[in-house]
């Protein structure tokens, strides 16, 4: 076993269970096409909330609204950090990131020409304080800061077991590893909330197991709130505390995995679309 993680990863000051993010009556449309119609959702500190639903249900749109890439036409999204509340709809993506809302993307969006290490250091951006001249001279506080961030990043590298690739260019890595680096880069922001858009898409079962283990570690040991979009129902039902189900831009159910599984509306939404919800582990094909 490697040395333990010595840094705080979680920047939230709330107690577990307190409301951290409140989405209220959010409407989003592109031209005449409604992507989200009246979504309301509460996210609590230190929970793993899965957002599921058939393709095109609006899952990624909701995530993009939270991280500021899309601006909803109606509704509010409020973030609580324990002292103040912040209206996210008025803020730009980089300002939302600075509040501690980190994310990964469905199609990997890494800095492909940079090394793993530099990708993680870029993730530390919002926490770096020293000014340009100090860093160029590598002097005094800048030097101490650099060393501290290098150590912090090494801890993330240990946590995600990517020691052997730390100096590799990200673009050259295998898909599963890239997904892991993207998670690491989001962690380097010391997030209060981590938004993961299909962190296991396209992975084999071994890679999925690893990823699920990392997500659980991050959540259990560091108490980071995780909002996760995932299609693999086995994983979703295993690791999430709560599940929200979207269909055609509306939330049709919300609750514990068991409640959601038993909800007739959910069954209906998935019927004819994807039987995965009900055939967990069976691996049957529906020809």
């Amino acid at each position, binding site marked *: 076993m490697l040395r333990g993680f010595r840094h705080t990863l979680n920047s939230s000051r709330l107690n577990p269970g307190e409301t951290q993010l409140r989405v209220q009556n959010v409407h989003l449309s592109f031209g005449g096409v409604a992507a989200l119609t009246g979504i309301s959702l509460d996210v609590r500190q230190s929970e793993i909330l899965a957002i599921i639903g058939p393709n095109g249900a609006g899952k990624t749109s909701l995530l993009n609204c939270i*991280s*500021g*890439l899309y601006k909803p036409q109606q509704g509010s999204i409020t973030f609580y950090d324990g002292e103040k509340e912040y209206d996210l709809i008025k803020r*730009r*993506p*980089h*300002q939302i*990131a*600075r509040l501690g809302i*980190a*994310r990964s*993307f469905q199609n990997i*969006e*890494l*800095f*492909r*020409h*940079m090394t793993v290490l*530099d*990708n993680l*250091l*870029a*993730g*530390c*951006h*919002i926490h*770096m304080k*020293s000014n*340009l001249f100090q*860093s*160029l001279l*590598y002097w005094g506080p*800048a030097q101490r800061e*650099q060393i501290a961030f290098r150590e912090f990043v090494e801890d993330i590298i240990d946590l995600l077991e990517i020691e052997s690739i730390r100096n590799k260019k990200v673009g050259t890595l295998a898909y599963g590893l890239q997904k892991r680096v993207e998670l690491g*880069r989001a962690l380097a*922001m010391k997030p209060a909330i981590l938004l993961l858009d299909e962190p296991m898409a396209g992975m084999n079962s071994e890679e999925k197991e690893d990823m699920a283990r990392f997500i659980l570690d991050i959540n259990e040991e560091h108490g980071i709130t995780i909002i996760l979009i995932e299609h693999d129902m086995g994983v979703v039902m295993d690791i999430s505390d709560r599940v929200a189900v979207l269909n055609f831009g509306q939330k049709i159910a919300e609750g514990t995995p068991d409640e959601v599984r038993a909800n007739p509306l959910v069954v209906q939404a998935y019927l004819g679309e994807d039987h995965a919800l009900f055939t967990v582990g069976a691996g049957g094909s529906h020809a």
Partner: protein
Amino acid sequence: MDLFIQLTLTGLTNGAILALAALGFVLIYKSSDVINFAQGEFLLIGAYVLFAMLVQFHLHWTIGLILTLVVAVGVGVAVERLVLRPLIGEPIISVIMATIGLSSLLRAIVSTIWGNQPRAFPPFIPSKPVHILGATVGADRLWAIAIAVVMLFLFNLFFTRSKEGIAMRAVADDQQAAMSMGISVKHIFAWAWSIAAATAAIGGALVANIVGVGPELAGFGLRVFPVVILGGLDSIPGAIVGGLIIGLLEAYVGGYLGMGLNQVISFIVLIIILMVRPYGLFGQEIIERV
């Protein structure tokens, strides 16, 4: 042999100045994908502002140079704010056209203020001839090489050590992801344009010291193209190596094959490079996987 050393020294100094102009060009391309046709005008502004500081305001050259850099940074920020930012999200060709317009505008402003006559420049770097291995070269030319080397070193530190440098590389790779890391893309563009304008101003000041100020300094803007195509549009080391190679090539061709040919040789190289290695010596090879 003396001629060879003489030409080598001349080539290296011209190359160093070309490299300084190219550095800013590459920086802008790297962070924002914009090809800046106004890079030569940044040299022009640097040279004329320093000229004004030294001749019209009678300042000591150190203060004059610092103020010139401040003005250059201001111009860079203004260009980003007034020209580039309104064009965010527009097709890249519109932005490039805007920089062509910008180059005419800046040149017109300079000639309105200072006129079109070439003027002598009070040397702020000693230009006393120095004898090296039988060749004679102005000390200011040696300074140009030294300053280019220092700038390369600083750029390297900037990109590997400073948070702005890392953020700039991040923005160059993936703007959306950079935003979601809390990086303000607009700030990074402003940084890139200011640094580009400031390095060009230093280049302009060095050229002015060697040949005096005049509107033809803006011609460096075009001479930058062979340099960056050779080195790779997005490569900082490429800008330096490309600058030195083009500088040397022009000097040797001018010295051995005759004047006139040296004016076109770099553009011949440009065409050959585009045919055989379009991403340049150090540029990122873009592979489209289908």
